[in-house]
């Protein structure tokens, strides 16, 4: 009984922190309409800042605590609202999603840069050494502080949002900012305050959580995912349900840890929040079909068949020529870029054309690599590397296909994280590796690195040509139409469910094949190759490059692959990769078509310029 109580208490404390996180998420979402993926990252930065002030610089703990919570965190939230969120007002959900993911990655970069992971940092617990005993149960003051704070915050938020005019105004601004302005409330000001409040809550959760474990940038950032699950339990609106969900997650995780065997603990416990998140998303109501809205942006021109085949051929020839000049190390890196570009093609199809945000493309790549490795390679292996991810993709799609935008992203995120924890860790051996053979071809020795590099270039070119062909045909038009206006598409007899199912499956198959080829390139894969965070970075880079063009995918993947090389030349870059990626997205994220789109547009302008010149010449002639 004492064990049970002690475990429940530990779980309750963790659950309270989840509840704080989740409440912060809900507050930001209900008051600005933006789901802040960077919520955990803000908490992380706050926890480290608190460490910096109180431990490294020796400030008194209460002073550091209040400075972080009441000054720095709200300031960060307000700045984020002004710089990032406000320009995105009215933007499609996919764009805001990528923007806050970009913020997450930026803050990760800041975290790595400011507090390099090579030293261990520990925060002392609050009121270290003080305990009280209630019925043989020892409760320390730190736990008590967490519980009391959480209750106070939950009650405070409830009163604030339904009882005060500012709280009501925060909710009203999401409903109709224009009307709020007509009623004498400045919507921007209110929105900024709500982001400041959300950041403050994130910081509170981060600072309270940090003393319970060693400070780790990634862990603190991703622990918020447990908060996502709780927030979904309240459908991102209902605060009491959110708190209840958080407590259930905290206590059940703690009990499983205490009572179940190590097998279950290792596989299931880390996945509990994910499973709950997935279930919560599944029980969401069907959304009404959305009618179209004005995009206001022209899509980049789609290359014709002749042009794409020509460029593809040229690409392969150049790759062949260049490969002769590359060192073995550069060949491996270039090959990795090539495969990643191929995997990104699946994102072009799914997110660019289909408008569905997926955070689990590398999970499918991992499944492809796994199938290839376990089946021993060969044609059969390749087939398995396509079929297994496709089947998994179809299965995931079946459950989530009716979701759109944010909820789809959350479901894929849950899937990716759960697969990380349960499947890859186990199937690919904890920190170990799985050997992946290269596919064998007649006439070509794929064991040769240069030949394999050229093969990858061919595969990418074929993939790009196939993708563009798909885009030009009926299926591509259907995808674009469905993304533009599901309601209009449905009235014309396009089945939203079937189309999305198909595109999701196809994208999973592409990613799977890419994963198998990636494994073949290095000869093996490890669980670390397919982490959720990498999937996020992949999506961000693809967005940066341009989600609508294979060119964009190629540029993004190559820059990703070659970045570590750049780092060798300029060691100071160190941990800047995350920071640069995030900042790039924040800067370019407003252009939906990215760098690739810019290039396509520039080409188009050049062409029309030429046409105009011809016109002018002819006019001149006629006049002369």
């Amino acid at each position, binding site marked *: 009984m004492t064990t049970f109580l002690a475990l429940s208490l530990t779980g309750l404390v963790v659950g309270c922190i989840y509840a704080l996180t989740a409440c912060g998420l809900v507050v930001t979402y209900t008051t600005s309409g933006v789901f802040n993926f960077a919520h955990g990252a803000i908490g992380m930065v706050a926890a480290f800042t608190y460490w910096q002030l109180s431990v490294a610089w020796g400030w008194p703990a209460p002073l550091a605590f209040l400075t972080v919570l009441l000054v720095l965190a709200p300031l960060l939230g307000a700045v984020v609202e002004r710089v990032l969120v406000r320009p995105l007002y009215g933007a499609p959900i996919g764009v805001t999603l990528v923007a806050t993911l970009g913020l997450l990655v930026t803050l990760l970069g800041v975290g790595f840069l400011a507090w390099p992971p090579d030293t261990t940092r520990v925060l002392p617990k609050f009121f270290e050494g003080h305990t009280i005993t209630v019925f043989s149960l020892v409760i320390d003051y730190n736990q008590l502080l967490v519980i009391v704070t959480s209750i106070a915050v939950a009650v405070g938020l409830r009163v604030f949002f339904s009882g005060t005019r500012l709280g009501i105004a925060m909710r009203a601004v999401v409903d*109709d900012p*224009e009307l709020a302005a007509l009623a004498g409330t400045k919507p921007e000001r209110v929105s900024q305050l709500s982001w400041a409040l959300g950041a403050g809550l994130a910081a509170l959760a981060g600072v309270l959580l940090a003393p319970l474990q060693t400070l780790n940038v990634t862990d603190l950032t991703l622990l918020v995912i447990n908060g996502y699950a709780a927030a979904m339990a309240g459908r991102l609106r209902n605060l009491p349900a959110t708190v209840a969900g958080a407590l259930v997650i905290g206590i059940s995780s703690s009990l499983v840890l205490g009572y179940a065997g190590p097998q279950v603990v290792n596989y299931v416990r880390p996945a509990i929040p994910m499973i709950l998140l997935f279930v919560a998303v599944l029980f969401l109501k069907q959304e009404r079909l959305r009618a179209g809205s004005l995009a206001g942006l022209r899509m980049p021109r789609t290359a014709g068949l002749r042009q794409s085949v020509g460029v593809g051929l040229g690409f392969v020839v150049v790759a062949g020529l260049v490969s002769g000049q590359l060192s073995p190390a550069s060949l491996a890196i270039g090959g990795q870029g090539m495969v990643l570009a191929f995997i990104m093609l699946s994102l072009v199809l799914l997110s660019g054309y289909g408008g569905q945000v997926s955070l689990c493309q590398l999970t499918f790549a991992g499944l492809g690599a796994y199938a290839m490795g376990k089946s021993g390679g060969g044609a059969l292996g390749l087939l398995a590397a396509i079929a297994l991810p496709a089947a998994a993709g179809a299965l995931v799609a079946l459950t989530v296909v009716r979701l759109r935008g944010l909820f789809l992203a959350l479901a894929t995120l849950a899937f990716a994280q759960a697969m990380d924890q349960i499947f890859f860790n186990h199937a690919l051996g904890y920190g170990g590796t799985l050997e992946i053979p290269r596919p064998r071809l007649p006439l070509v020795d794929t064991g040769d690195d240069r030949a394999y590099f050229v093969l990858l270039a061919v595969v990418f070119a074929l993939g790009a040509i196939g993708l563009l062909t798909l885009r030009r045909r009926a299926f591509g038009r259907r995808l674009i139409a469905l993304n533009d206006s599901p309601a209009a598409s449905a009235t014309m007899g396009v089945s939203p469910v079937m189309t999305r199912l198909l595109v999701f499956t196809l994208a999973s198959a592409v990613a799977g094949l890419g994963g198998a080829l990636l494994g073949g390139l290095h000869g093996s894969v490890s669980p670390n190759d397919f982490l959720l965070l990498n999937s996020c970075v992949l999506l961000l880079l693809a967005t940066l490059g341009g989600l609508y063009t294979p060119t964009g995918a190629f540029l993004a993947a190559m820059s990703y692959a070659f970045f570590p090389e750049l780092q060798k030349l300029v060691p100071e870059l160190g941990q800047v990769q995350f920071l640069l990626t995030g900042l790039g997205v924040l800067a370019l994220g407003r252009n939906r078509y990215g760098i690739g789109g810019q290039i396509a547009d520039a080409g188009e302008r050049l062409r029309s310029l030429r046409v105009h010149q011809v016109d002018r010449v002819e006019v001149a002639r006629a006049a002369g």
Partner: protein
Amino acid sequence: MTTPAHDALELIGLRAGYGSIEVLHGVSLRVPPATVVALLGPNGAGKSTLLKVASGTITPKDGCLHVGGVHVNGADAAALARAGICRIPEGRGIFPNLTVAENLRMWTGVGDLKPAEVAERTYGRFPRLGERRKQVAGTLSGGEQQMLAMSRALLVDPAVLLLDEISMGLAPLIVAELYELVGSLAQQGIAILLVEQFAQTALAVADHAVILSHGRVTRTGTPAEVEEHLSAAYLGGAA
């Protein structure tokens, strides 16, 4: 009460639009206190745009916007709301996810009314809203939603009331009730500029009427004078 020296709302040569598209090409208009002016005209004439400019939602590009004789070009909607402009937007001017009581709380952003006064003024005039004060506003009937929207005019006691098609999609009985309220608000001294599809309904309560066509004022006068030219304006003859 002394008679104010200035018009409650005055537009002089006002130009405005959306982005590079100009909708109003130099509109001049005056609304004195305690007067109902009906703004009529075909679809796309710029009526709603004019109301948006007058309430600060759109900033004018050229010309003058005067409220109570004060030049207010460039003031934003929240500032103009505090200066006594109250626009009830087209459709339903309510927050659908807030309860009736919370909506009323939002209306009191201008001025400082006590909750008891708010309840007395609103629920006294619209008892139906009182019965539903805890209900989420989005689930009210169309007529009740419009009453809730109109209750803002009751509560804030504005200098100028801008009404954009308050009859849209409502039963005739409710429209009659709403216009009765409009009449009584004008008697309290409020200057009212109303846009209405049903010209007869609007002209019945108006002291003065203006026809707007292709972003220009094409005719002004008493309701009777303007009525003669209505069909020509609507059917395109007067352009």
